[in-house]
């Protein structure tokens, strides 16, 4: 009896093990790929889907590939849907490896109307995009028609439903004061090339940003007062201090222990402060009060662990 039981158990372990391994180690993008619909409304997928990695992505989307590389893109799947009576629609699914990078690449462009698809879906002139789990999904109609718009949204919902997990936002976003935060202006990133894209700071990487740093840039409005806030979380305090020193040397030599914010030649206020691993910098504030308040709030409440 015991021997029979052992044989049966062994048999089930034997046939189920490959599935478990496949599930554990399979490429998440491939799993998603296999489940994608071939036909939605009058649009049908072209026979050949294409995959790109962090090098071949340039062959596909030219210099724009740099954005996805900056967020640790693992792989991109591109599928084209065609309809004899409608515009082609391109589905691009980027597997970013982590949910914080999927969120990050999503924040690169936040123009559009909010749509309840995926996490924080946005729609603009035939282009739908959202992030979910470790994926950034873009669906783009080469021409916006009523039918194409309907298809894009339906396909978006279908893809989003295939991604079962939700992703967590980077923890650094939780350090931002909520009052006056402009969510659509928020950018999460790692490297200085992306910083310069959104807010030109310097031709050199004076803040020593890179894969090891988490950074967030955002705008604040409180009444008539406005400011830009940059937060960078470094691996250790030594690095945050060093970056702050470089920022002071190259950009804000007037800042000192008694004056954390100073008025620059454009009549706007800038300043910087370090607390532990966190560097906070304010740029182009039209109010000294807001600049000081943001620095104070950040460094007072921040829990960097």
């Amino acid at each position, binding site marked *: 009896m015991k021997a029979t039981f052992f044989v049966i158990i062994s048999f089930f372990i034997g046939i189920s093990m490959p599935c478990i391994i496949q599930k554990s180690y399979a490429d998440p993008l491939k799993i998603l790929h296999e489940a994608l619909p071939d036909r939605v409304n009058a649009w049908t997928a072209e026979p050949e889907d294409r995959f790109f990695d962090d090098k071949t992505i340039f062959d596909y989307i*030219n210099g724009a590939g*740099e*954005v996805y590389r900056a967020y640790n893109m693992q792989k991109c799947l591109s599928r084209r849907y065609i309809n004899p009576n409608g515009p082609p629609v391109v589905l691009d699914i980027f597997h970013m490896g982590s949910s914080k990078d999927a969120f990050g690449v999503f924040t690169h462009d936040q123009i559009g109307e909010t749509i309840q698809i995926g996490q924080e879906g946005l729609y603009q002139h035939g282009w739908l995009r959202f992030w979910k789990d470790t994926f950034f999904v873009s669906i783009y109609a080469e021409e916006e028609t009523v039918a194409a718009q309907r298809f894009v949204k339906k396909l978006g919902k279908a893809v989003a439903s295939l991604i079962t997990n939700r992703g967590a936002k980077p923890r650094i976003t939780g350090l931002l004061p909520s009052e006056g935060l402009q969510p659509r202006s928020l950018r999460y990133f790692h490297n200085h090339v992306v910083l310069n894209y959104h807010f030109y700071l*310097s*031709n050199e990487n004076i803040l020593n940003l890179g894969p090891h740093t988490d950074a967030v840039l955002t705008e604040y409005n409180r009444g008539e007062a406005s400011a830009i806030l940059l937060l960078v979380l470094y691996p250790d305090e030594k690095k945050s201090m060093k970056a702050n020193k470089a920022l002071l040397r190259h950009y804000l030599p007037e800042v000192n222990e008694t004056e954390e914010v100073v008025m*620059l030649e454009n009549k706007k206020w800038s300043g910087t402060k370090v607390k532990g691993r966190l560097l906070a910098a304010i740029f182009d504030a039209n109010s000294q009060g807001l600049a000081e308040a943001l620095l104070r709030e950040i460094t007072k409440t921040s829990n960097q662990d």
Partner: protein
Amino acid sequence: MGRYKTVITRRDFIRTGSSVALGGLMGLPLLAHSALKTPAKSRVVLIRDQNALDKDGSPRPAILQDMLDEAVTTLCDTPDPTIAWKQLVRSDEIIGIKSNVWYHLPTPKPLETVILRRLLDAGISNENVSVDDRGVRKNAVFQRATALINIRPMRTHHWSGLGTLLKNYIMFVPSPWKYHDNACEKLGAIWQLPLVRGKTRLNILVMLTPLFHGMGPHHFSRRYMWRYSGLIVSTDPVAADTTGARIIQAKRNAFFGKESPISPPPLHITAASAHFALGNCQPDGIELIKLGWKKDVLI
């Protein structure tokens, strides 16, 4: 690229009162004192024809031929297109026509054909001329080329601000992404490489249906293209790009109803002038000749 180490910050722009957003067109503050010399004055011909495109937006080859002939003869101060081309290239030369195959907005084939025809008219042997884009590094004609003709459509570009004539040579390097830093500011360095240096005889910026704004991973939407129906022709790539950039900027401002700077700023245009002495980007260094259709010329 080795000498390019000065730290330039936003503060430098603030100090000089120049807008960072417009930095690419206005001149970088610290680059203005470059020791390198740019040409005194660069001639740029902008030609437009209302009928350059058919109703579907496809270029009309015969009209493109006329436009290019008129532009090149004006540029070279001679009435005959063949003579003009002979001023640009010798009959014994080996010529690469650097095109652009970007899926959404490639160099129009009829324009490539028109250029080929004029080169053959000027006495170039058929086997000594080739059109290529992504294969230029392996193309036997390009490897032996003594002269280059540079042609591409202008468009906004996700990473460099603008897809320009200067940027069109990025396929001459094995690792294009190495030039992506700081909005591709150092693209001018590519023009110093042996495969390219001093070989460019003519630059043609295609402004038939430019892209003035982009969106999405592909940075493209037909919504942001318009029928400008023009060509910009010059021996100076920087002057041609600067002229194109001014038109794109004007279109953006008109379309969006407010100042809408090209983003990111096309720093590589100014840097190509100030650091790499590839041409003129300042208005007083450009002799702009406008020919043809004047409506909504934007410059």
